[in-house]
C-alpha cells in the first residue's frame, strides 16, 4: 500500500517553514550558500532559494553537487552510477553552506558531500544540513539542522519524493520495497 505522507500544499508549507528556519538560525542571508545534492536535492535547494528570496528579499547563491565520485561503495555498487554535473560557482571559503537533499537515510550520502565540500571546495565557515524527509536508520553520526518532516519508516520501505519540476507533481509517498506503485 502506498502511503501519502505529504501532499502538494503540505510540502509547500514545509519548504516555507524550512526557509524561515534557515533565515532565523543564520540571522539573515549574509554569507549563505545553498548546495543541492543531485538530483532532487537540487530541486529542493531551488525551492528553498526562491522561498528565502520572497521572505528576505535577497538572493542566495546556490550550487549543485554530485556525490557519486565520493561514494564509499563505488567499487562494489551493483550498477554504475550516472555521474551528473557538479557546479559550485562561488568560492565557499568562509561561507555558511546549507547542504540540501531530499531524503536523509543512512547518512552516507551526506558523508560523501562533506568530503567533497571540505576537501575539494575550500573551507566553509559552517556546513548545515536541510532535508525534506528524515526517515531514520542512520549508519553514521550525522543529523539534519532543518527537517521538513520526520517519517518513521522500516527498512523494507521506500520513500519517494516527487517534485513538479522532475516528476509532474509535488508529493512524498512511502511504498513497500518490492511493489513499486508506479
Amino acid at each position, binding site marked *: 500500500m502506498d502511503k501519502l505522507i505529504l501532499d502538494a500544499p503540505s510540502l509547500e508549507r514545509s519548504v516555507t517553514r524550512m526557509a524561515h528556519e534557515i533565515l532565523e538560525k543564520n540571522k539573515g542571508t549574509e554569507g549563505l550558500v545553498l548546495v543541492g545534492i543531485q538530483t532532487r536535492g537540487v530541486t529542493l535547494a531551488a525551492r528553498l532559494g526562491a522561498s528565502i528570496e520572497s521572505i528576505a528579499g535577497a538572493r542566495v547563491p546556490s550550487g549543485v553537487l554530485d556525490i557519486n*565520485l565520493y561514494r564509499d561503495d563505488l567499487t562494489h555498487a551493483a*550498477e554504475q552510477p550516472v555521474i551528473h554535473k557538479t557546479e559550485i560557482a562561488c568560492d565557499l571559503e568562509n561561507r555558511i553552506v546549507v547542504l540540501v537533499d531530499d531524503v536523509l537515510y543512512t547518512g552516507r550520502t551526506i558523508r560523501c558531500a562533506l568530503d567533497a565540500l571540505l576537501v575539494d*571546495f575550500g573551507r566553509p565557515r559552517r556546513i548545515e544540513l536541510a532535508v525534506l524527509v528524515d526517515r531514520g536508520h542512520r549508519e553514521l553520526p550525522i543529523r539534519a539542522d532543518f527537517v521538513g518532516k520526520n517519517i518513521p519508516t522500516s527498512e523494507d520501505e521506500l520513500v519517494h519524493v516527487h517534485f513538479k519540476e522532475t516528476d509532474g507533481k509535488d508529493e512524498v509517498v512511502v511504498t513497500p520495497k518490492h511493489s513499486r506503485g508506479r
Partner: protein
Amino acid sequence: MAVENGVENVTRWTRKDLLSIEELSREEIELVLKTAESFKEVSAREVKKVPALRGKTIANLFFEPSTRTRTSFEVAAKRLSADTINFSSSGSSTSKGESLSDTAKNIEAMHVDTIVMRHSSSGAAVHLARSIKAGVINAGDGIHEHPTQGLLDIFTMKERKHKIEGLKVCLIGDILHSRVARSNIWGLKKLGAKVTVCGPPTLIPPGIERLGVEVSYDLDKVIEHQDVLNILRIQLERQRGAFFPSIREYAAEYGLSKERMKRAKKDVIIMHPGPINRGVELAAEVADGPQSVILDQVTNGVAVRMAVLFHTTMVER
C-alpha cells in the same frame, strides 16, 4: 540523491575493456560523452581531483612513441586518484624479446586494474584483452582504431555544434593508415552524422563506402558543405610506400590553407588529432585561427579519458 527516488532509465556500462568504437552501441557512446561532460568540471577546479578511482592502479603500456596520448591518460587517471605506472617499449623487456602477453601478465601480476596500451599491430588490444583479467583500453592499435581519440573528437564536435545527428563531417587526408579516421567513422555513423572522407585515391582504402561514408578526391568540391573538417596527420613515418608524389603536392591538393578556407562555411570548425605538420596538411594561420578547436580537443581528451577509465575500471573483474 537517495537511491529510493526512482530508477533512472540509463544504459549500464559492462565492459572492462574499450577496444574499439565499432563494438560500442549508440547508447554506450552517449553514456561516455555524458560522463565526460560531468568530469570536465573536475579539471577546472582548484583542487583537480576526485577520489573515484582511489586505490586502483592503471598502467600505461606504450609500444609506440606517444607523448600526448600517454600524458592525457596519465593526467586523467591522476585526476581520478588512481595510481599510474608507465612502461614504454624502449627500456622494457620487449626490446629483449619478451612477448606481448608475457609483458602484460607480468604487469598484471602486480595487481594492475587497467592497462592502457598502444601498439603498432592492429588487433593487439583485442589479443591482450583476451589473455588477461585486467581491463584493457586501446590507445591506438596499428591502423585499426583509436577509440578514445574518436570519442574526444565527437565530444568536441557535440560541444561546439550541440548535436551530432545530421552533422556534416569531413575527414581529410590519409584515411588508409588512420586509426583515428576509423574510430571517427564508426562513432559518427552510429550517432547519425553524415561523413565524407577526402584524400588522394592511394590513401583511401577501397570499399570504405561500405561503412556508410561518401568518398571524395577533390577537397575544393566538398569543403563548402561541411560543418566540421577533421584533418588527419600525414604520417610521414608511414609514407615509405610513396602514396603521393611529394609533400608539396599533397599540401597543394589537400592541405587546408587560408585560401581554401574561404570556400568553407563561416562557422566550420577545424580539428586535428595532433601533432600537426604545419604547412603540410594544415596551414599555421588556420591551425591558430578562430575556427580551430585543436586545443579544446586536448582539454576534452582528458575528460573523455577520465570517463573511459572510470567506467571500465569500475566493472568487476
